[in-house]
């Protein structure tokens, strides 16, 4: 837990969190908008 706290203090800066927020939003937009595509192995009947 201490290591996790250290990592948070080191990397959980406002600019890193903003970056994460933007990237998450873009991934959500891409997946919901359709860009993941349809992969093999989905199965039909």
């Amino acid at each position: 837990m201490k290591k996790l706290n250290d990592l948070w203090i080191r990397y959980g800066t406002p600019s890193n969190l903003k970056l994460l927020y933007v990237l998450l939003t873009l991934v959500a937009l891409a997946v919901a908008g359709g860009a993941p595509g349809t992969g093999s192995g989905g199965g039909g009947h």
Partner: protein
Amino acid sequence: MILALAVVLGLVASLIRHRDRAFRQIAAIPLRSAWLALVGLALQWPLLQAPGGSSRQLGVQQMLFLLSHLWLLAFVWRNRQLAGVQIVGLGVICNLLVIAFNGGFMPITPETLVHINPGSALEHWPIGIHYGYSKDIILPGEGTNLWVLSDILVLPPPFPRPTAFSVGDLLVAAGILVLLQGPGGLRKSATTESSLS
């Protein structure tokens, strides 16, 4: 796969263009109402988790899927000042059109499914069945409205996982790639440069 490709290409292009400022550029994208995109994805989740089978048993998932486009379009409208979002919006509209004209799912032909599932045969893919863990329904090419906007494109080898996608998907991926270049998109904006320094 096409999403992963767009994100990787976008990040690489951003790193080449902006070098050590690439991540600051991405963090500086002024996205408004991001929760709209997240709600849009959450509403699609039940359909994306549904295994293959009769599409008639997916009434609720289908309704939520269609409804999700309202949130996506609202997000696009709120962020329409960004060039990348405009391209994404065009892709979403292309996908929504073909989905709306084909009973609420993205059509895919048995031939395309044979392409992305090597070793399978056409009879493995009965018409009218939901293709599992996707937004797709299996329809014949001649029975598909706006066929050109459906999942007709296939990502060829050497990509490890064969993937089918639509023109709309391609536009969404292109929009994400442009967005990852920062607030100015592909333009080298003086205001962006100064706002970050």
